[in-house]
């Protein structure tokens, strides 16, 4: 029993190392840097780290294009084009999300000054008065991003599980840090944690079964074992199903979606945007890798399950979104519906499926970060005219288009993109995914998907009508607060990207279509 240390190609791991390293440094900053400058240092560190990681991913992309894909760390992680593409998309959205997170909108941090204090306690009030800030947020986000970078690149089940936990645990915590409506936030956090723990347990159980089946946790060995092992189909199928449960939970597919609305609503809005975009990207990328590696031998057994889930996800997400009166909940359900649309591309099981999923995720991620970024800006006013929490009730947005046209136009853009109206990025995304599904023979799904889109268009359009054509309700007074600028930058970038990707998507499309060129 000799232990052979794997040779580690640090250059290839650089994006992950940069982000996780910055997270560790962030923890040290918590301990050693003075309060006065701590927040500033954390923000700069986080933004720089994400930017640097993004640049590194771009560099690795060129390396992989030249030298082909490689296995890293003894095969636990692979460096290939789909992984790098997913990492790039995660980093783009994380970078934009970080800009929103770092913004002290309306002059106050978006997070509770002291997470350990009971809501409403004098302790909390004191912390607020002293102007404490919970700067652990930044390293936590970085840890989570680190997990998300490993997730799509993991090529064995154990690494996948560890990445899953690394990306999830900080999110559980972050969900509970809202500055206002703290009980809601803590409830969200607890629910997310408990349900997440359950799904992780399922995942682990499936992992164990698959290991028992194939004698290995590596995807490649598992795939090789699929046709070879006769008589153990039960274990294989049960294992794959359980692992899928874990992944679909992260994706927020029906029926594993129930946490989504509660958590999206309760979490600090900037975190919601980050989480909604990046988690979904990473989880879908991992799901695709798992399915493409393992399932080809199982298509026949699994497609009824995947089809059912995709149909349910699209329909439930859409139908429930119609009746929501809270913007964050509405966006949450719409994100459930989007998960269903992405599943179409996943189910296609073609190479165009992978690239279409990547493109869709980019489009969706950008619009999501932008939309939630805008939600952070619209605030309620109490009777004395003080600006309080976010105005998330839909009717509070009435007439916003007349008072704050730029904001409303940007929000409209994101909504149109979600709805998949032509000339926005969402249309191209939907188109690529649907076309891939038709190519893969899943045209009935496409018909359902388009009908769901039509129903979805209803509530997006209703929101637009509300903003531009409805008179504001005097009682539900809402106002728009000033940003420090970073949210504005993020939203502007998202809006521009939404239009550009809709009108001239060719460069990005050709990039994503190369995502399947070198796949391990």
């Amino acid at each position, binding site marked *: 029993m000799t232990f052979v240390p794997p040779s580690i190609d640090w250059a290839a791991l650089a994006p992950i190392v940069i982000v996780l390293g910055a997270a560790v440094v962030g923890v040290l900053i918590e301990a050693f840097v003075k309060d006065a400058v701590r927040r500033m240092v954390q923000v700069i560190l986080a933004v720089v780290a994400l930017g640097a990681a993004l640049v590194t991913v771009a560099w690795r992309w060129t390396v992989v294009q030249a030298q082909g894909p490689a296995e890293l760390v003894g095969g636990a992680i692979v460096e290939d084009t789909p992984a790098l593409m997913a990492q790039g998309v995660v980093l783009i959205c994380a970078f934009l999300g970080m800009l929103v997170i770092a913004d002290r909108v309306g002059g106050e941090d978006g997070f509770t000054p002291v997470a350990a204090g009971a809501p409403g306690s004098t302790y909390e009030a004191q912390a607020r008065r002293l102007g404490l800030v919970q700067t652990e947020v930044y390293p936590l986000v970085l840890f989570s991003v680190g997990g998300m970078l490993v997730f799509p690149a993991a090529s064995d089940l154990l690494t996948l599980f560890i990445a899953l936990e690394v990306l999830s645990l900080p999110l559980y915590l972050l969900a509970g840090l809202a500055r206002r409506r703290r009980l809601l936030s803590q409830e969200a956090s607890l629910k997310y944690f408990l349900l997440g723990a359950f799904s992780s347990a399922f995942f682990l159980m499936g992992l164990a079964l698959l290991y028992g089946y194939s004698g290995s946790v590596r995807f490649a060995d598992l795939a090789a074992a699929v046709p070879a092992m006769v008589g153990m189909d039960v274990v294989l199928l049960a294992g794959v*199903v359980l692992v899928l449960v874990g992944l679909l939970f992260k994706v927020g597919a029906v029926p594993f979606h129930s946490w989504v609305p509660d958590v999206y609503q309760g979490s600090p809005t900037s975190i919601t945007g980050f989480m909604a975009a990046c988690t979904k990207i990473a989880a879908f990328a991992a799901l695709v890798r798992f399915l493409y590696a393992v399932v080809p031998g199982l298509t026949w057994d699994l497609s009824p399950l995947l089809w059912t889930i995709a149909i349910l996800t699209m329909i439930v997400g859409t139908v429930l979104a119609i009746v929501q009166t809270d913007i964050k909940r509405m966006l949450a359900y719409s994100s459930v519906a989007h998960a269903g649309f992405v599943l179409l591309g996943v189910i296609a099981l073609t190479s165009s499926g992978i690239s279409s999923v990547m493109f869709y995720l980019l489009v969706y991620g950008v619009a999501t970060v932008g939309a939630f970024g805008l939600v952070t800006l619209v605030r309620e006013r109490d009777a004395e005219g003080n600006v309080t929490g976010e105005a998330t009730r839909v009717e509070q947005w009435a007439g916003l288009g007349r008072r704050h046209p730029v904001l409303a136009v940007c929000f409209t853009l994101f909504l149109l993109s979600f709805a998949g*109206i032509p000339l926005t990025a969402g249309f191209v995304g939907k*188109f690529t995914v649907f076309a891939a599904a038709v190519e893969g023979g899943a045209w009935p799904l496409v018909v359902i998907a388009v009908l769901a889109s039509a129903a979805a268009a209803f509530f997006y359009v209703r929101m637009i009508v509300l903003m531009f054509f409805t008179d504001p309700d005097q009682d539900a007074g809402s106002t728009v607060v000033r940003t420090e600028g970073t949210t504005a930058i993020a939203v502007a970038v998202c809006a521009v990207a939404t239009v550009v990707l809709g009108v001239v998507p*060719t460069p990005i499309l050709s990039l994503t279509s190369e995502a399947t060129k070198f796949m391990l």
Partner: protein
Amino acid sequence: MLQLIAVHLLAALAAPALVSRFGRRMFLPLALVPGSAAIWALTRLGDVLAGEVPVQSVSWVDSLDMHLTFRLDVLAWLMVLLVGGIGALVMIYCAWYFATGAKFLGRFAGIFIGFAGAMLGLVTTDNTLALYTFWELTTVFSYLLIGHYFTRKGARRAGMQAIIVTTFGGLAMFAGFLILGAMPGGSFSLSELVREPPAGTAATVAIVCILVGALTKSALVPFHFWLPGAMAAPTPVSAYLHAAAMVKAGVYLVARLAPGFAEMDTWRWIILITGSATMLIGGYRSLKQHDLKLLLAFGTVSQLGFLILLVGQPNQAVALAGLALIGAHAMFKAALFLTVGVIDASAGTRDLRQLSGLGRNLRGAAIPGFLATFSMVGLPPFAGYVGKEAVLEALTHDGGAYESALLAVVVVGSVLTFAYGMRFLWGAFARKPGVADAQLDREPPGLFVPGFVLAILGLGAGLLPGLGEGLFERYAATYPAGEPGHLTLWGGIGPALALTVVIVAVGLGLFAARGLVERAQDAVILGPDADRGYRTLMRRLDRAAVAVTSATQRGSLPGYLGIILVVTVVSAAIALGSSGVQIGQVRLFDSPAQLLVAGIIVIGAILTAQARRRLKAVVLLGVTGYGVVVLFALHGAPDLALTQALVETIALVVFILVLRRLPAYFSNRPLKSSRWWRAALGALVGVLAMALALIVPAARVADPISVLFPTEAYEYGYGKNIVNVTLVDIRAWDTMGEIAVLLVAATGVASLVFARTRTRTGRVERMRDRRSGDAQVWPSELEDPASRLRPAQGTATAPRRARSWLTGPGALAPNRRSVIFEVATRLLFHTMLVFALFLLFSGHNAPGGGFVAGLIVGIALTVRYLAGGRYELGEAAPILPGALLGTGLFLSAGAGAVPLFFGGVVLQSVKIDVDLGILGEMHLVTSLFFDIGVFLVVVGLMLDVLRTLGAEIDRQGEATGTASPDIAHDSPRSSPDDSRPLVDAGGEH
């Protein structure tokens, strides 16, 4: 063509500024923009007649097959002419129609031109995706135009309805295009699709989807209700969108695809049924309208059905007539709408019951009104007559059942058309008895011109039928069936002419009996009302969504978890059931004792689930745990049994420490029904787990890795206790990770409990820290049963230092003390410590080890704490848990690293045998040091738990005066905590 669209785009962007700056007259120069399209089309007349199709292609998104390909064949040419020409005329009309100071005119102008541009693209592009894009653009623009008076609620609602219905249709069409494009043999090019139409189920579904799109856009039954609703729009919008342009998009699409697909059965039946129903229902409904605009709207619905019915047939002659009627309809219907606009502006009403005498007093409106109506009802020599005559001619020519049905529909529809046409003329222009002549404002002449032009054009086109035939025959020839038809004013005496006479006669009769018809319509409700159906559908959808939300998304964690569990159980059960399950060999028991213990475990588990008191549940849970201990022991695994017993004990203690701060009871029981299904679900999950446990080992083909452990443990770890060697050697890395996690968890617990008093974390509270004024530990209102045996208060002498063990002044409140417990503690504490050390050192070969030893020390400390309170804990272990944890981790890691200095690998074990003379031979394995580290960490963790969840919570309780309630029994004086559910108790904090 791209340039034309670009011009539209630029003009649309510039228009708002221009109109705001220069006023409504700017509509005149802006009318040149759509006009340029018409003029351009006219210049191409020669090419079109010669059969040359100009094509222009710009690649847009190559990878998606999205190209901006435009081509001007006959059909496109006709549509461009209509879209551009009528657009220009309507814009001229706008220059006078709106009031000078009307608001939002700039916006209106921009959107109007944008719409014209989108429409232009729609009818000329050859790429289905580009067509869809333009299609949706027209939807959005039309929404904005319909909702132009957005301050009016009715307009907003109408606009919303229109956009929902047409977007729905558009998306359905998109799905169809997508399937046709991406399927094998498919294409995103319209011309290729028509040339080689794909076949198969998918193609049929796709065609249905596309037809849904066309039908919604052209307001065919059952989607026809949005068009009358959209009459809330300004009249120019109605004239352009709802007569000439947008609603024609559906007709255009059907005409475009018919050459390829018209012989498909699905296609034919859909066209026949929806087209006929629309033609008849529209005509019938318009017979009872009082609002002239609504009358025209229903008439338009009827005509659109007619047109689609015609251009959707595979027959060449019918199609030729259809094309001619598309042109005719655009001209007369736009003219009629514009006329209504004039009437409305001039008389101030559109209600035909209030209009009287306009035929004489408003000649400028009456003349185009009459001309256009004659064309509509099909009187010679107007364009409408030529078209309708050609239809009758073609249909009487072929005599199949399908054609006969079609003919009947056309005849009945034409009768209705004639009747409502007359009704329109009568309503708008006749002098009605008992109604005073309408007061008329003078309108500028410019307002009358466009209507005149269109009406005259209708007449001109009718007079030159040969030109139309020469133009359209080329496109009609692409249809798959029948013979070429003819457009002519005089087709000779035959069945067609006879039918025309019949139509006119019956139509006149219907008109004459208009009062009767209206009353009959009021009395008889003909079928379901589509508008109401739509609203009911939307409401139902809303309600269903609310119902589903409240059923599945009520925020209840058990509910969410239930869903996930149900799905998991079902899918796993399907997976198990579908793949030939084999259950391995099952041996019920080795000895009857096992059966007995298992029975106790089961009973314990059931009672746990039933328990309402938290403490009871925890204790019963303990029963199951200790049952497992016995099972281990019976199976011959004392080491496992020992470890399990200790873990159970510790878990129980920690549970109880925490429970002190929770209400005694669980929250109110759920309703009976949900309790039952939860129990059932729990049982199901249990059964599934059991099934897996039975199936999976049987399915195993590889040897389990644990088979190797006994020899590995002895040869490499030099120990016989496999459990311990696994911990410290075989899986030492895991252990290292675990103790690190333990340390973090302990620190986390401590930091949460100490969060409010950060300063106290660095101190151990001992007896001497207690001040005389401090509250007693665990004060209680219970009666002290031993009070009579104690010396009276105040007479007790201060105990000497040496006697403070368990009885010091900081010890428990008197009524909490238990003599038996104290004596037992005195006997056990040191014994346990020694025993723990023994286990620590002997653990390598015999049951024991660092982990177990640490737990025993932890229990010893627990005993001290329970017997003597928090100060006693400080006395028992006057050391900070952090120090223990840190030292332990350091020791383990250090011990693991030492072998590196001797050329070994991390965590390698070495055996050292030392002869200690009289003490015998010592057999030392280096992994012992690692184990000592584990021991220290476990002790540190236990101390930390006791200090935080025990002592610190006591202290905080004493400080705030809120003692923990007695959870072991209900106090005689019931406290509010006990009787109330948790929710209420939680609400107070």
